[in-house]
């Protein structure tokens, strides 16, 4: 009986200590990790969507509120004027959330392009939604977009319907946020 009690106490104390130490470490590394993810994942995705950006969209990002959820908006300037914005949104894929960076042209509200950021789809199959052959189809499209199987113009990756639908869903989610926030976005960067 005493042995059992000791086992429980030792294991609980050990787990408690490790949980405490890790949550502390997570707290102090969180801002740096966010910065690293922005620089290494979202930065290149924005660059792919807006190759002509002349500013630093990461450095000029701003936080907005949409439906009680914080959204990060990345402004893109070219020739001194604000020409587009990029924002990231997600939707259910085959292996968890599919996160897509979606770029919008401010002039006519069409898609400037999309770039996959973090996703865990099946390698060689669902992961192909991150390739230009799929993502390239979105440039210039009006939102909301639809897969060709649903009467739209986007050809899904064959054999990866769920992943393709996830990407399309993420784009449409982003478009909804963009439509709601457009006025605020224009006002925020008007000055």
């Amino acid at each position, binding site marked *: 009986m005493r*042995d059992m009690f*000791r*086992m429980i106490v*030792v*294991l609980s104390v*050990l*787990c408690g200590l*490790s949980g405490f*130490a*890790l949550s502390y*470490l*997570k707290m102090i*590394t969180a801002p*740096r*990790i966010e910065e*690293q*993810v922005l*620089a*290494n994942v979202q930065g290149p995705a924005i660059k792919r969507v807006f190759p002509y950006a002349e500013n630093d969209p990461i450095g000029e990002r701003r936080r907005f509120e949409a439906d009680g959820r914080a959204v990060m908006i990345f402004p893109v300037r070219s020739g001194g004027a604000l020409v587009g914005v990029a924002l990231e949104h997600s939707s259910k894929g085959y292996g968890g959330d599919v996160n897509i960076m979606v770029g919008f042209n401010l002039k006519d509200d069409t898609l400037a392009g999309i770039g996959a950021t973090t996703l865990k789809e099946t390698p060689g199959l669902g992961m192909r939604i991150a390739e230009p052959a799929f993502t390239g189809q979105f440039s210039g499209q009006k939102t909301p977009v639809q897969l060709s199987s649903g009467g739209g113009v986007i050809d899904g990756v064959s054999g990866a319907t769920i992943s393709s639908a996830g990407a399309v869903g993420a784009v449409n989610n982003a478009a909804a946020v963009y439509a709601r926030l457009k006025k605020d976005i224009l006002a925020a960067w008007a000055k």
Partner: protein
Amino acid sequence: MSVLKEFTKGLWKELPPFRLVLGLCPTLAVTNSASNGLGMGAAVIFVLVLSNMIISMVRHIIPAKVRIACFIVIAASLVVAVELLMQAYAYPLYERLGIFVPLIVVNCIILGRAEAFAAKNGVAASVADGLGMGLGFTMSLTFLGSIREVLGNGTWFGMAVMPESFEPLRIMVQAPGAFICLGLILAGMNMLNFRQARRRGEQAEALAQQQGCGSCGGCTACGAGARDAQAQ
């Protein structure tokens, strides 16, 4: 003296991937370039040294029945710490190593050294053991990664080292290349030991026998079993 011995045994005599043949999952999976091997090795050194240290410090408190669970909790906490630090300070490396960073938890070397060494020895000796084993592991991975990167990509730590006309053997940076390379290294190390033993005048056959079965000890058990069967 003994601390030094604990340290150096991991560098050659008990070199983890090539001599103990432990920790093969990361050895085979992430060594497609020298820098990946080095990064993986550094993460393992960190976890191994600290887990050996902590385990040897608390070895008298931990009840024998739940020791494995305790070791895993300690190793897993350290691995998560490495994962967070790597994300914060070496993000590109974290992206390349991917799933193999969290998998350090189940790396045989960590639990193997905890159970076989740190749970029975003092703090200084355990740290030396962890450092030696970790360095040996890092050297092995970097060595294997270097061979594969040079042959499969014509570069070493990202620098071009082969002449222009060199046609990279793509298979070397893919999964089969890891097996081919590891097999050849193991064969080479066995040959080296064989030669050394013969030079010392020992019986080569005796050594070969010992190497194959020394760690197993199953032969005597089998022999006993056969005798029992005969008696019946």
